[in-house]
Each structure stands twice: as structure tokens, then as C-alpha cells.
């Protein structure tokens, strides 16, 4: 299995307080890493580092076998993050899901349709709906579909099932499994719902403010 991430000695402070402390984390291709932990343990900060949006104060991050240069914006197209509270663009569902492809100069209706299907949004019914015509759960699923359409090397999901009903949570789980099994990519999923994570992740970690990242299995 190819190495997607190798992180070591990661530390980041905010306002003089240590908000992230990860001694070591390796994520390989085909792997789904679940991260759980209490509020304020640095989970979202870790995601921001893994999405190359935040340069940590200390530590080394290797991505696809190379040391990461946080000033290199093109890397962000390979590690795609779904934020905890995603916001949609003021476009239709189709416009939202195809946006990432269009900024990459790609136009592939098949990928957009597939991504929408994966999260249970029927393209026939949803493609032309505007952003304001969607429920909270649908917004989250559109946000996820927009990331799935990009088939990134690393799919980073921050609380992807918050506000979702059990059926939607099941679809999200299936979508993540399909995304990772189909190619040499990996997913990192943050959730408070440890039981849900245990139902599909290949490795589970717990992040604590004091003890840092602990491997559960």
C-alpha cells in the first residue's frame, strides 16, 4: 500500500495554548482512518493541516512520499476537505457539485451524476435546485458530493454525518467505502459517533487535548 500521509512531531498553538499535538500518524492508500475525541482536542486543526490550509508551528508532514510545502496551492487539489459546517455556493446543486471540476478545467457530467448518486441525491430531482431550497442534511450531502466528484488522493471529512438521519449516514458510509476501495486513495473521517466510525474505518484514533493522538486499533 502506498503511503498517502506521514505526519510526525506535529504541534500547533493558538493564542499561547497548545491546540494540536500529534506525535505520529501514517495513512496509507486504501485506508480509512477514523478520528474521534472531545471538543477542542484539535481534530479540526489536524484536518486543516492535512488539507494544507494551515502550516503547523512544528512537525513534518509528508504527502504522497514528499515533504509538504504549505505555500504550494496545487497540493490542495489532491487532499480535499469537507469542513464541519460546509457552505454551499449560491448556485444550483449541479453548479455546486461541478464547481471543483470546473476550476480544474474539467467538464465531466458523468462524475457529477455519480457523486450525486453516491450521496443519495437523485440528479433528476436535485440538479436544478437552488442552494436555498435544500435542508441542512441535503446541504451537507451536496457538500460531500462536490468533494467526491473530485476523486482526490485524500478525502478529509470533518463530522460528515452531523445533522444527518440514519439512512443518510449509511449512504455517507457507503460513499466513503466506494471512494477508497475503488482507487489508491485514502479517507480521514472525524466523528463524535465512535460506533458509526467503528462500522467501517480501517484504523481508529482518539485525539485528546493532553495526551495527543492515541491509536485505538
Amino acid at each position: 500500500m502506498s503511503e498517502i500521509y506521514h505526519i510526525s512531531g506535529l504541534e500547533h498553538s493558538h493564542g499561547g495554548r497548545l491546540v494540536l499535538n500529534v506525535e505520529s500518524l501514517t495513512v496509507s492508500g486504501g485506508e480509512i482512518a477514523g478520528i474521534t475525541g472531545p471538543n477542542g482536542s484539535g481534530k479540526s486543526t489536524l484536518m486543516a493541516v492535512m488539507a494544507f490550509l494551515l502550516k503547523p508551528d512544528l512537525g513534518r508532514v509528508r504527502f504522497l512520499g514528499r515533504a509538504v510545502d504549505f505555500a504550494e496551492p496545487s497540493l490542495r487539489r489532491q487532499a480535499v476537505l469537507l469542513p464541519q459546517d460546509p457552505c454551499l455556493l449560491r448556485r444550483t446543486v449541479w453548479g455546486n457539485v461541478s464547481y471543483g471540476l470546473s476550476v480544474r478545467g474539467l467538464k465531466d457530467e458523468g462524475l457529477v451524476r455519480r457523486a450525486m448518486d453516491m450521496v443519495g441525491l437523485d440528479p433528476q430531482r436535485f440538479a436544478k435546485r437552488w442552494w436555498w431550497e435544500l435542508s441542512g442534511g441535503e446541504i451537507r450531502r451536496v457538500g460531500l458530493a462536490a468533494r467526491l466528484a473530485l476523486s482526490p488522493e485524500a478525502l478529509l471529512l470533518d463530522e460528515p454525518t452531523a445533522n444527518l438521519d440514519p439512512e443518510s449516514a449509511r449512504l455517507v458510509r457507503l460513499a466513503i467505502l466506494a471512494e477508497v476501495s475503488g482507487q489508491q486513495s485514502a479517507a480521514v473521517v472525524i466523528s463524535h459517533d465512535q460506533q458509526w466510525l467503528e462500522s467501517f474505518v480501517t484504523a481508529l484514533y482518539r485525539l485528546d487535548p493532553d495526551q495527543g493522538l492515541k491509536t485505538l486499533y
Partner: protein
Amino acid sequence: MGFILEGLAKAVNLLASGDAETFSAVWATLLATGQAMAAALVLGLPLGFALGYFPFPGKRLCRLGFDTLMAFPTVVIGLLVYALLSRQGPLGGLNLLFTVPGMSLGLAVLALPMVVSLTASAVEQLDPRLRLALLTLGADTRQMLLSTLWEARHGVLAGTLAAFGRVVSEVGIAMMVGGNIKWHTRTITTAIALETGKGEFAMGLALGLVLLAMALTVNVVLALLRRRTGP
């Protein structure tokens, strides 16, 4: 009431017969408004965007400045532009006083603070999570800026409409800088003021109808555009 209806009938007749003097004023208005709005948008959109998007020292002061300029009395703008363009003024050599381009310049000065200020407000009111959404979807710097402007399109459109409404209905600047010269710089508004003063009520009314139709057309076109690009 009778004289209004009579005026209205004459006005329709003037328009239907293609009265040259009426249409000369319409043309001067279209030209001056079009040039002024084009200049105000070309300068104002990037300026307003930058003012709303980027943090920089003195930003609040800048906003305050443009907000104040929005409420600047139009006669004072007319006076200043007149002074600039007059023979002794710094731009006197350009011979723009009492010309349509000169009038456009004055009207652009009127529209610019509105376009800048309302564009900045539209950008500032965007969802603070938008930047992260665009970044995580892979937009580069140029795509981020363009997509952010697109997200603010409704506010920008409202600002453009407000500026257009003010420019197309402006009398003071058109009168002072344009000089209200028949067949040349006489606009709809200056002609209405003059014709009504002369007792030519029908002509004033005809021009008023054209002004209303112009405002209606621009609003309808922009409303259709708005429907196509998301409510």
C-alpha cells in the same frame, strides 16, 4: 386633469412621429449614462471588491470616505467638475466642457462612490465560510476572487441599479457640465426642466415617459438576469 391628458396625447404623438428634438435628447442621455456607468463599473467594481474583501490598515476610514461621497450634493460635484474642465481648470486643455464626454465624466464621478460602496457592502456580507469552501474545492487565487465576486452578484447588481437610477435622472451635473445645448448635450432631464419652464408640457411629458421606459427596461433586463443566475 384635462391638460395632463392633452399633454399625454401630444407626448405619445411626439414619440410616435419620431420627433428629432425629442430623440436627440434621448440619444444624449443614453450616451452620457452609458459612458458614465461603464467608467464607474470598470473602476468601481475592482475598487469596491478590494475594499470589501481585503483587510488593510485604514480600511474603515476608506469605507467612511466612500460612504460620505455617496451623499455628496450633486450640484457640488457639478461645480467641481465644471471647475476642473473649465478653460482655467487643470483639465481645461481637453476641451470637455459642454460636451457629452465631459457630462459623462461628471456623471461617472457621481456613480463611482455608489458602485464602490455598494460592491464593498455586497462582498462584506458574504458568508464568512465561503473562502474555506472555495479553497477546499481547489480554487486558485484568481478563481477565488472571481467566484467571490460572482457570489456577491445580487448585491453588486443592486448597487449598479441604484447608481444607474441616480445617473439617468441627474439634472444638476448634466446642466452645469453639459450646458443643456440643444441637439448636442441636452439630455432628457435637462430638456424636461427647460420645456416645462417654457410651458411645453407635452414635450416634457414625452421625455418623462421615455425616461420611465428606460428605467423599466434596465430593471426588467436585470431582473431576468437575476432569475437566470439564481434568486
